[in-house]
C-alpha cells in the first residue's frame, strides 16, 4: 500500500479523499474534476434549499420517482416468476396489482410534475436540457407502458396489440416493432425500456441537483452591482 504523505508528516488524510489537484492529468482526474465542480456532495445531498420550494408542486417529482421505484420492484418480482404466473396465483395477481397501480401513480404524478414545470417555466436560466430529458423520459415511459399492456397475456393485451398494429404499420416500423410478437415486446418491456427510463431519470436528477431549482418567474437573479 502506498501513500503520497511523507512518513512522519502527520497528515492522516488518504490521497483519494482530497480534491483532485489542478496539475493532475489523465481521464480519471479529468472526470473527477468535472464531477467535483458540477455535482459536489453538498449539491447531491443538500441540507438547505430555497424557501420557495415549499409548494406541493415540488413533491410531484419525488413522488414520481417513488412510484417508479415500486414499479421496478414489482416488475422484477413478476419477471422472476414468469409471464403467466399472475394469471394462476393469487399472490401473483396481488403483485400484478401493485405493478398496475404503481403505473397509474407513476403517470399521474409524472404528468402533474410535467405541468408543474411547464407553468413554472422550469427550463429557464440554463435548464433547457433538464426539461428536454424530462420530455424524453415521458415519451419512453409511454412506450414502456404500451409494451407492458401487450404482454399481459389477457384479452386487453390481445385487443391493444391488434389495434396498435395499424398505427405502427402505417409508420413503416411494423416489421421492426411488431406488437403481435410477444417475445419482442417482453424483452423490450422487462429490460431495455426500464433500463432506459431509469438511467434517464438518474440523469434528470443529476441535472436538477447540479443546476438547482429555478427561481420563481418575475423574481430574477439580481444583477451584480
Amino acid at each position, binding site marked *: 500500500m502506498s501513500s503520497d504523505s511523507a512518513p512522519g508528516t502527520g497528515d492522516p488524510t488518504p490521497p483519494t479523499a482530497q480534491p483532485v489537484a489542478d496539475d493532475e492529468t489523465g481521464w480519471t482526474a479529468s472526470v473527477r474534476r468535472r464531477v467535483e465542480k458540477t455535482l459536489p456532495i453538498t449539491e447531491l445531498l443538500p441540507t438547505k434549499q430555497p424557501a420557495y420550494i415549499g409548494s406541493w408542486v415540488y413533491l410531484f417529482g419525488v413522488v414520481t420517482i417513488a412510484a417508479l421505484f415500486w414499479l421496478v420492484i414489482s416488475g422484477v418480482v413478476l419477471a422472476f416468476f414468469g409471464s403467466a404466473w399472475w394469471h394462476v396465483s393469487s399472490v401473483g395477481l396481488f403483485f400484478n396489482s401493485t405493478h398496475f397501480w404503481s403505473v397509474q401513480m407513476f403517470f399521474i404524478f409524472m404528468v402533474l410534475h410535467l405541468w408543474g414545470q411547464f*407553468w413554472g417555466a422550469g427550463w429557464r436560466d440554463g435548464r433547457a436540457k433538464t426539461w428536454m430529458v424530462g420530455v424524453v423520459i415521458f415519451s419512453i415511459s409511454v412506450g414502456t407502458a404500451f409494451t407492458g399492456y401487450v404482454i399481459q397475456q389477457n384479452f386487453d393485451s390481445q385487443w391493444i396489440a391488434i389495434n396498435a398494429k395499424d398505427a405502427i404499420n402505417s409508420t413503416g416500423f411494423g416489421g421492426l416493432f411488431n406488437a403481435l410478437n410477444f417475445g419482442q415486446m417482453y424483452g423490450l418491456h422487462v429490460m431495455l425500456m426500464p433500463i432506459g427510463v431509469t438511467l434517464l431519470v438518474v440523469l434528470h436528477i443529476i441535472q436538477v441537483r447540479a443546476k438547482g431549482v429555478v427561481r420563481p418567474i418575475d423574481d430574477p437573479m439580481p444583477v451584480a452591482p
Partner: protein
Amino acid sequence: MKASQVDKKTYYRGIAMMPYDLLKEVTFATLGILAVVLVLSAVLSSPDVPSVTLQSWSKANPVDFLTTASGELSGSTIVAGYGPPYNSGSGSVQSWGPLSPQSWAGVHVPINPPNDFVLQPLTQATAGDAELASALSTYQSTSGDQQQKWLANYTTGLGSATVAADGTVTVPAGDYGPVSVLMDRMLTLARSGGLDALLLTSDHFYQTDFSRPLLFLDDGGYIADLATQQKLIGSDWGVMNETGRYPGSAWLWLYTMWYQIPPFNSDTGFLGISAANTDLAVVGVMLLLTALLFLVPFIPGLRDIPRWIPIHKLIWRRHYAEMRRQAAAGAQKSP
C-alpha cells in the same frame, strides 16, 4: 453575467433558504406511495379478462369462425389484402400525399392467409384422416376459379347455416366441392384447441410470436364484439380504456382524441387527412406535438405561455407574498 453561468450562491442571492432533508422526503414519498399502492391493490386488485383463443371463438360463434376461415382460404379477408409488413396487398396501406412509409418499409412479417391460416394447419392434421387428405388434394389441384366458386357458394351457404346444441354447424346442401370437408375439419381442429397450437408452429421448437393467431382473430367479428361490450373500440376512446371499470392509459387521451374529430374521422377529409389515413396522420401530429414539447424552451411564444397565464402565482404564492411584504416594509422605511 447570465443566470445560467453563475454558481448557486450567486444565483440564489436574495432568496431565503430553508432547512431541507432530501433523504427524509424521498423516504416518506416512497413509503407513502407504497401504502397507496398496497391499499389499492388489496381493495381493487387489477383487471385480467381471459384471453380469447381460437378454441373459445369457434365454440362461442362457430359461424363467424367458419366465415373467417373460408375468407382466409379465399384470400378475401383484411389481412389477405393488408399490404406491408404482411404482404404485397394495398388494402390497409396508408399514405399522405407522396409519403407512404408503410409501402417503403416492405414486407417483413410475411403472412399468406390461405396457406398460413388454413392449408398448412390442415395439412399438418391429415394424419389418420384420409378424407381430409383427399379433400386437400382435390382443392389444391383445382383451378383458382373453381376454388373461388366453391368458396363463394360455401360463404352463401353459411348465411343459412344452423348451429346444433353441440356446436356442429350444418350448411344447406350446395356445390361446395371439398371446401365443406376442409371447413368442417377447421372447425373440429379449432374446437379441440389444436388450431391454436398449429398457428404457432414454425420450423423451430420455441415460439413467442403470436402474429398469425392474432391476425386470424382480427379478421373475425368475435373479438371485436367482445371489445365493443368492454367499450374498447376506437369510437369509445378505446385506446385509453381498460377492461372492466379500471383506469386505462389515461396518458393517451390526446392521442385518442384525434381519432374522434374531423378530419381524422372524416370520409371526405381535409388537406389529405381522412379516415383512410387516420393512423398515419394521428401519429404524425403526435410526433410533431412531442417535438414542440421537447423544444418549448427555444420557441418564442410557446415558452412565454407560463408568463401570460400566471398559474405560477399560485405555485409560488407564498414567495410572492413575501416579496410584497418586503417591498412594503422597504417603502415604509424609506423617508
